[in-house]
């Protein structure tokens, strides 16, 4: 085969992402939308693995696909109502939104494809980012080290926990 395994996996992941993200936003059923989101997130994790970002892929699966989608499913069940008649806006708005979005997409694609990126590494080179490097970067205070954002994110998460409890508690 002239095509490497690497590329096949990439194409599979890419097809999955494209199809499922379009399905996410065009389906009437909310739960199906969440399911398609799950598939999209798994495929994204696959992409990360392809890029040799193993920790990132793992984090993606754990946090995004595992935590967030579960959260969505639970809240979908919690807020179920029988009143919803139709899931989408009226035809006019639909058409104008589609046009705007597709136009934007076309413009973006034109920009991207017409720009020549200075690629530094061939797509198939092996250059994994190990836990060691990540650990050191996260807990160091040097030039390219991310202790401060790490701590900031933990405070942010604390604030979100507290905020979520406060907002959603029973009076």
């Amino acid at each position: 085969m002239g095509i490497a395994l690497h590329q096949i996996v990439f194409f599979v992941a890419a097809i999955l992402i494209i199809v499922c993200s379009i399905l996410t936003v065009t389906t009437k059923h909310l739960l199906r939308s969440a399911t398609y989101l799950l598939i999209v997130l798994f495929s994204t994790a696959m992409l990360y693995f392809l890029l040799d970002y193993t920790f990132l892929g793992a984090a993606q699966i754990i946090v995004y696909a595992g935590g967030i989608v579960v959260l969505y499913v639970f809240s979908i069940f919690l807020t179920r109502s029988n009143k919803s008649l139709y899931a989408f806006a009226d035809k006019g708005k639909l058409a104008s939104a589609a046009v705007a979005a597709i136009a934007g997409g076309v413009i973006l694609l034109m920009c991207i494809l017409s720009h020549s990126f200075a690629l530094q590494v061939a797509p198939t080179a092996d250059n994994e980012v190990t836990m060691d490097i990540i650990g050191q970067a996260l807990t160091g205070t040097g030039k390219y080290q991310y202790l401060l954002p790490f701590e900031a994110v933990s405070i942010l998460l604390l604030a979100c926990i507290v905020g979520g409890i406060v907002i959603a508690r029973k009076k």
Partner: protein
Amino acid sequence: MEYTIFIVLLPMLMFLFLGLAGNKLKPITAGILGCTSLAAVTVLSYATAWQYFTMPRTAGGAYGATTVFNVQWLHFTESLHIDLGILLDPISVMMLVVISTVSFMVHIYSLGYMHGEKGFQRYYAFLSLFTMSMLGLVVATNIFQMYLFWELVGVSSYLLIGFYYQRPASVSASKKAFIVTRFADLGFLIGILIFGYYEGTFDFASVGAGTGFAGVDIMGAGRVMLPLALGLMFIGGAGKSAMFPLHIWLPDAMEGPTPVSALIHAATMVVAGVYLVARMFPLFIVYAPNVLHIVAYVGVFTAFFAASIACVQTDIKRVLAFSTISQIAFMMVAVGVCTPDGIGTEAFNEAGGLGFMASMFHLFTHAMFKACLFLCAGAIIHTIGSNEMTLMGGLRKYMPITHIAFLICCLSISGIFPLSGFFSKDEILSACFHFSPAIGWMMTLIAGMTAFYMFRLYYGIFWGKEAQHEHTPHEAPATMTVPLIILSTITVFAGFIPFGHFVSADGTAFTSHIEMSTAVISLTVAVVSIAIATFMYRKDKQPLADALEKDCKGLHTAAYHRFYIDEIYQFVTHRIIFGCISRPIAWFDRNVVDGFFNFLAWSTQECSWSIQGFQSGRVQQYTYVFLVGALAIIVFALML
């Protein structure tokens, strides 16, 4: 002569005091205060007159015009400025005497007449205001000051006619008076402005008033503009003096209290027009004698018109009002028939200028006897409670003093020797005959009509069948009868004043002779008219009068309705002016002018309604707009 300032100042202060603090005073206090100040003013006026007329004359033999004060008020150019001051010359001093005397009598009379009325203090305040304005008018040093006080007099008249402001008739009468005179004053103002522009000054001193034509000076294009200016000023005077067709306000002004009618609409304010013509007389006689003759013709017509209406009125105050219009027209005719022949010579005063003296003399005597007549009418109205002659009759038994005073004044107005009216009317008739026999005979006829309708009135009130009264009529109290007695006494003796010594056309003294022919004619006509009136109206039944009334029904009705002049005015103003001019303009103003601004407001509101959608609260809409905007910017950035 500096004390003359108090003549104008005292009533003004009294007006301010009574106007502001009158509510806190008892009515009688306000009345006493008003009378006291007027007494002081009268004394000062007499003192001024004594001092002025005993001063030595100027070189030309005339009384000099003395300017006591002259304060520059508004300054336009070097020579054109509006001053305020006091000018004393024969006619202004005479007017001071007349005004203060009549006003004083009216003040005393009002103590009795207005007793118990609500607004007593307000009444005295307005009376003082009026007195101040009229006094200021006659002593004006320049024509703008005269105009100022002219308007003040108009305002006082408005306030006093509308004194019973809760009556709609009074309100509309006061409005009518003010509007008609104001409308005439438009002509007056235009005349003043033309005069000021061409003369370069507003002062009287420069037009030689009172200096025997010595100072008459024409600076600008005087040939056409000066007569035009004088004519326009006369229009203003015609409005104030109730000449046809601006006479409509005077009969309606009788809605005011009777002392007010006596003071304003008989003796003083209505002669302001005559006074104006007399003031401008040197200019009139030298440069615009034709305008003067127009004055005379208007006067003749008005006199005849008013006399014929007075013959059929039943409201006693209206009879007196039309009589006033007629008599003032006499004065206008007298001053209008003056001609410039013989100007500058001795004979001027007896020939061409006789009318001037006659007019002023008649002004003096008329003020006295007309005020007395009105005050008598007031006493009658006070006791009967109504103005209509049909409710009166046979009152001579109950009101002797009023009866005698009324009779004396009627005889005077008819021109019976030796009362004052005879002398003044005789001078007028002489002047008229001198000018043109036609006018002379016309005025004699009108004098006869005057005698006729006055005695018709007299018999209607004091003789004839008595009407039913709720309570027997009684004589008026002393405060009301004393002025009657004083005024009738003056009427009896005033004829013997050698008026020509004091007031004459060029200021020099002359003795006026009574022309026998004119005197005999006028006396005969008067006696015949009185006889006709006696025959027709003395008895209880009036068969001849009723028969005449039936035969000439149309004429009688027309005269009773004052020849429908009021209706014509109503038609013109309502249909033509309001309908064709005012209404379209009002429509234009409401719809186009206001409409434009309404449109601006409406369009602003519409704009804000339409952009209300931007704040819809729909986040998806916001995002959409955001997206489209960002794309647009990207596209622009890519293009450039």
